[in-house]
């Protein structure tokens, strides 16, 4: 399929959205990451930072140094190729699915007419790709959730989920960080901190990385979480 040219959509006078499409699609995300990498390799003076999302790249810039039209011209000239994920990092993230750490699992099983074990097996068995960060610091949005686990968001947000929660809704999966109320369903917890402001960069998982989950019991969860609190890095090993 021939690639269509991206759309350049101003988002105010200091940001530009480069839109490759409007759907969740690994090919679109590969093009987003391709442009992101091209901009990192050949920086444009005046660009402050870029934010990759499922299907577009937002470029924040300093209007003192760059106008929207000048930026569009420079970006359009930049050669960029869709970025393959083969070279990306691959992480194995420990997850505890026991009901004390999976508050909505029973509700979800009921709604999807599945057993809790079936849901866990599907969630844990899938291969994921990191599409973007969103919501708040360290919230990792993943593609690759099995279609059988598709459920629409709650009409009303549920009470705050604990730190490191695994959530699903709208056919998407994510790993959370700080507690917050959410319209998603809580199906597990990881002791791994996806965000640490003392680290540079603060997140070790990059957009484009691949990821799998590994089930752990609540005893190892607590041990790993305790170790993390004591300062020991919970190092997710490359799979």
């Amino acid at each position, binding site marked *: 399929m021939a690639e269509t040219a991206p759309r350049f959509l101003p*988002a*105010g*006078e200091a940001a530009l959205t480069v839109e490759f499409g409007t759907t969740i699609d690994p090919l679109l995300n590969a093009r987003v990451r391709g442009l992101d990498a091209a901009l990192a390799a050949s920086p444009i003076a005046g660009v402050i930072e870029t934010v990759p999302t499922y299907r577009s790249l*937002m470029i924040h810039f300093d209007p003192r140094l760059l106008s929207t039209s000048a930026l569009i011209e420079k970006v359009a000239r930049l050669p960029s190729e869709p970025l393959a994920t083969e070279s990306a990092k691959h992480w194995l993230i420990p997850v505890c699915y026991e009901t004390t750490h999976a508050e909505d699992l029973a509700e979800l099983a009921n709604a999807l007419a599945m057993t809790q074990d079936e849901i866990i097996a599907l969630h844990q068995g899938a291969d994921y790709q990191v599409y*973007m960060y*969103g919501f708040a610091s*360290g919230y990792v949005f993943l593609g690759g959730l099995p279609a059988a686990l598709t459920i629409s968001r709650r009409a009303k947000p549920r009470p705050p989920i604990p730190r490191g929660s695994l959530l699903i809704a709208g056919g998407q999966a994510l790993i959370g960080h700080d507690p917050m109320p959410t319209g998603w369903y809580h199906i597990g917890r990881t002791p791994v901190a996806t*965000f640490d402001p003392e680290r540079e960069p603060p997140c070790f998982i990059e957009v484009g990385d691949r990821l799998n989950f590994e089930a752990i019991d609540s005893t190892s969860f607590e041990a790993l979480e305790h170790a993390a609190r004591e300062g020991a890095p919970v190092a997710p090993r490359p799979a």
Partner: protein
Amino acid sequence: MPALRVLRAGPGTTIQDGGRFLYRRYGVTPAGPMDWQAFRTANYALGNAHDAAAIEIALGGIELCCQGNALPLAFCGGAFQWQRNGKPLPCAMRLTLQPGETLSAKPGPSGAFAYLAVAGGIATKPVLGGRATQTRAHLGGLDGRMLQAGDVLPAASPSHAPQIEAEIAAPWLSRDDTPFRVMLGPQQDYFTDDALATFFSAEFRLTHEADRMAYRFDGPKIAHAHDFNIVSDGIALGAIQVAGDGKPLVLMADHQPTGGYPKLGHVARADLGRLAQMRPGETCRFSRISVDEARNAWLQCEDAIAETQRFLRPLRREPTNEDLLRINLSSGVIDVDES
């Protein structure tokens, strides 16, 4: 080392700098001041860098005491009621607070935020390159939280030349009710033509759902042309998001860096400080502006604010015993009979 001790702080009062950039790709909100124009003016009145950390004071107000050495300060923003040692002050000024003196601010007739800058900036510990407080993620400021009684805010440098006390008579600090200028996009095609016409002609009222994340407005429904969900994309400051209820939501300093509702347009940065100063219940209108016009308006605005020092009007005040003592020491003689 001069410092400010917080005697009382109402809710919503935080330390803010120019914003924490470079980490939006990891979901980190830049934060920064709600009214960047007033924030910058306070810093420039002291000769600070434009993004030096200062105190953002919300409608809860604040009361502080100077400790250590004398500390030059500047404040401006909404029309708050300021007092030094219980005596009223203009609502935008530069002064030097002596150790033991108190300074307080409470809301006045209008405005939602005031800024108090200190010479050299406030020297709390930077997190991810910034001092801006983002309470939701517990980042920056003091332990990522709002200020509270007992907090001690150190100034960055040990001593400063005393500055002439002056009122900041900057024309851009006065508020009017001209419509807020808005650039369309990126998802204006998610709205009907009638909806866009309504947005640019109707009056909107700021609701009580107004905080550092977003201001929700009430008014006629802004109808979507089709769906009101989009696959998440990036969000810039001042974006006007319209969710399923058809009410516009202007995304402010603590906005999320990505989101899944269509964005009708963006408020021009040159007007965003004035919008931030609205209080719930106040009304406004929106008008259209092109991206190029908005950029020019922003640059002109920045250039004007950079000239803040030209708008300082020295203030006469009753001399205190301390002043008299200083004059006495420096000149040697005071002839009280001639005064």
